[in-house]
C-alpha cells in the first residue's frame, strides 16, 4: 500500500480521540488505569501461559545451573579457575562466594540468551497475532492501535525483567546450594557486606533488564513489518547476532558506541567501589535512544498498516 497517503490516519484517531464516547455510562474513578490495565493484565496472562514463554524461561534458568555445576566440578580438585571469555572476571570468585554466580550468570546470558528470548517475544508480539488472524479481532474489539502497541511493549518489557530475575534467582539459589555465601570483595578490592552485595545484585539485574529495552523496541518494530511471527523472530535474532559480530570488528570502532549491545557489560561497574557510572549512563542513554527511535518507527508503521490477515 502507499505509505504516504495513509500516514497519520491512526495518529489522529488513536491519539486525539477521548478513550470512550461521551455517551458511555459513568465509569469508576480509575478509568485511565482500567483503560490500559485490563488489556495489559490479559496480555501478561496470555503471554506467560504460552508454552514457548515458559520454555524460554526454563532455558534461562538452566544456564546458572550449568555454570554452577561446571565451576563446582572444575574446582573440585582444589585448583582455581581463571576468568575466561570476554565477560567480567567474576567466575573465579564463585568458589569463594556463591553470590558471584549471579553476576557470572548475567554476564553469560546477556550477550545472547537473554536478548534472543526478548527477540522471540518482541518479534512475535504483533506479527504473531497477524499470522494467527487474531490481530483483526483485537482491533475490531476495538483494542486501539496505540493502546495495543503500548500494551505489547509493556509486556515485552515485563518479560525482560522477569527473564533477568529468573536468571538472577536461579543463580542465587544454585550459588547458595553449591558454594559458601558471605561478605564479598568488589572489583576495586574493598569489602562489602553480604546484604549490600545482594542489593548490588538486584541493582545489576535491573540494569541488565533495562539494557534489553533497545532490543525489545527493535523487535517490536520488526514485528510490525511482517505478518509472519517466525520471520520477525528470526530477523530480530539475526540483527542481534550481526550487531554482536560487528561490535567485535576493530575497524568499526567509530560506529560501535551506537550499537545497542556495546555497553551491555558495563553493569560490572556496579561492583566497583565507588561505582563507575560513565558507561552505565551511556548504556541507559543508548537504550532510551533505541526505544525512542524504534518505538516511534513501530508506532508510525503500525498505525498506517493495512490489516489484511
Amino acid at each position, binding site marked *: 500500500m502507499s505509505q504516504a497517503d495513509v500516514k497519520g490516519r491512526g495518529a489522529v484517531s488513536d491519539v486525539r480521540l477521548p478513550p470512550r*464516547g461521551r455517551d458511555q455510562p459513568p465509569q469508576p474513578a480509575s478509568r485511565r488505569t482500567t483503560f490500559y490495565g485490563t488489556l495489559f493484565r490479559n496480555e501478561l496472562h*496470555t503471554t506467560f501461559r504460552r508454552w514457548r514463554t515458559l520454555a524460554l524461561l526454563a532455558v534461562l534458568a538452566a544456564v546458572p545451573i550449568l555454570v554452577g555445576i561446571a565451576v563446582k566440578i572444575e574446582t573440585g580438585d582444589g585448583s582455581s579457575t581463571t576468568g575466561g571469555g570476554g565477560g567480567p572476571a567474576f567466575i573465579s570468585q564463585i568458589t569463594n562466594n556463591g553470590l558471584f554466580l549471579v553476576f557470572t550468570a548475567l554476564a553469560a546470558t546477556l550477550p545472547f540468551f537473554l536478548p534472543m528470548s526478548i527477540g522471540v517475544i518482541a518479534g512475535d508480539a504483533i506479527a504473531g497475532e497477524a499470522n494467527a488472524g487474531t490481530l483483526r*479481532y483485537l482491533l475490531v474489539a476495538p483494542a486501539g492501535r496505540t493502546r495495543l502497541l503500548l500494551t505489547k511493549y509493556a509486556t515485552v518489557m515485563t518479560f525482560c525483567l522477569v527473564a533477568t530475575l529468573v536468571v538472577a534467582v536461579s543463580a542465587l539459589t544454585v550459588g547458595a546450594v553449591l558454594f559458601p555465601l558471605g561478605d564479598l570483595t568488589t572489583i576495586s578490592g574493598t569489602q562489602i557486606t553480604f546484604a549490600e552485595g545482594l542489593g548490588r545484585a538486584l541493582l545489576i539485574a535491573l540494569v541488565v533488564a533495562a539494557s534489553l529495552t533497545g532490543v525489545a523496541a527493535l523487535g517490536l518494530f520488526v514485528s510490525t513489518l511482517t505478518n509472519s511471527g517466525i520471520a520477525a523472530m528470526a530477523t530480530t535474532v539475526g540483527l542481534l547476532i550481526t550487531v554482536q559480530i560487528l561490535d567485535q570488528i576493530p575497524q568499526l570502532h567509530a560506529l560501535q558506541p551506537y550499537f545497542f549491545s556495546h555497553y551491555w557489560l558495563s553493569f560490572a561497574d556496579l561492583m566497583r567501589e565507588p561505582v563507575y557510572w560513565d558507561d552505565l549512563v551511556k548504556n541507559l542513554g543508548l537504550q532510551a535512544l533505541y526505544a525512542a527511535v524504534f518505538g516511534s518507527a513501530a508506532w508510525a508503521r503500525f498505525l498506517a498498516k*493495512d490489516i*489484511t490477515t
Partner: protein
Amino acid sequence: MDQPSATDPDPEGSGDGAGGDAGGDESGDESVIRTRALTKRYRGGQLAVDGLDLTVPAGSVFGFLGPNGSGKTTTIRMLMGLIEPTSGTARVLGRPMPRAARTVLPHVGALIEGPALYGFLSGRDNLVRYDAADPTADPRTRNTRVAAALDRVGLAAAAGKKAKAYSLGMKQRLGLAAALLQPRRLLVLDEPTNGLDPQGMREIRSLVRELASDGTTVFLSSHLLDEIEQVCTHAAVMAQGRLITQGLVADLAAGTRGRLVVTTPDPADAARVLKEQGAGDVVVAEDRVTADPPDGELADITMALVTAGVRVRGFGVERASLEDAFVALTGEGFDVAG
C-alpha cells in the same frame, strides 16, 4: 444500550479534507453503513474495490453477495477500520471510519473471514481476551457476558476446552460468540455458517433472525444464495470490485425473468422448437427442457410444440430465484473468481 446518537455533531469530521461532502449531511439518515465512492487499490496496483456506493438501512438483514475475489472482504475490512481506503468515504453508525473506530466499533460485532483463536487458550479465555481488548467493556460483568455469549451459540459445555481442540464448526460458533459479547447495533458476519453442519446452519439462521428482531442490523456476506434468500431483507451484489445492484431481496429476484420449463418425453424435439420460437439458453436435462422465455405470448409456444408433434407433460414458468438474479447480474457462476 447506550449508543452514539446519530444526530450528534461529528467531532472527528473537522479534520476530514478528502470527504468534506460527507461531513454532516448524512449523519441524520437511517443508514447504518453508508459508503461514497469507496475505493481501495492495493500496493501492487490491483483495484480491489472500485467506487462503491453502499447503503445499509437500519434494522435490515443485509445480504452481501459476490463471487470470490469480488472485493467483499476488502469492503468489510475498510468498514471495520482495518484497511485504509485509497479514496472515498465510509460511515458506520453515522460516523466516519476508520477515524471514529474507537467510538463506533464497541457497538459492532464482527466475524471477518472466519474465526481466529488462540489455540492454547480455552474457549472461555479466548472470549475473555477479546472482551478485555474492548475498553468500553465492563470488567465486572465480563464473566457473566462471556458465559451468556457461549450459551447463546451452544458452546457452554465446551467452554473449558482448549480452542485448538475445537472442530471447525465449534471455532465458527466461538467466533460468533465473540461478536455477541455485548449488545450490538450492527453485526457484520462474513460467511457465518461456514463449516457448520445443517443443524448448526439452521441454528445460526434462527439466531440471526432473533437478533434482527431485537433491532440489530445484520450485514451478512455469504456464498449460499438460498441462505441470503431465507434470512435477508436487503441485498447487494458485487463483482470485480464494483457494486452491481442493491435493494430489497424480493425486488432483486423479481427483476429477473423466470425460466420456461417444458416437461416432455421428446426433449430433443422440444428443444429445437423452443429455439425456433426464439427462446434463449435452452438446456435439456432428461425429460425437462428449460429456456429463457422469448418475448410475446407464451401460448404461441405451446401451439408450436403441439403442431410439431411434441408430447407435453408439463409447461410453465418457474419463478426466478436469487441465484438466477445473481447469475444474470454477474454473468457468471457463483464460484468463479472475478
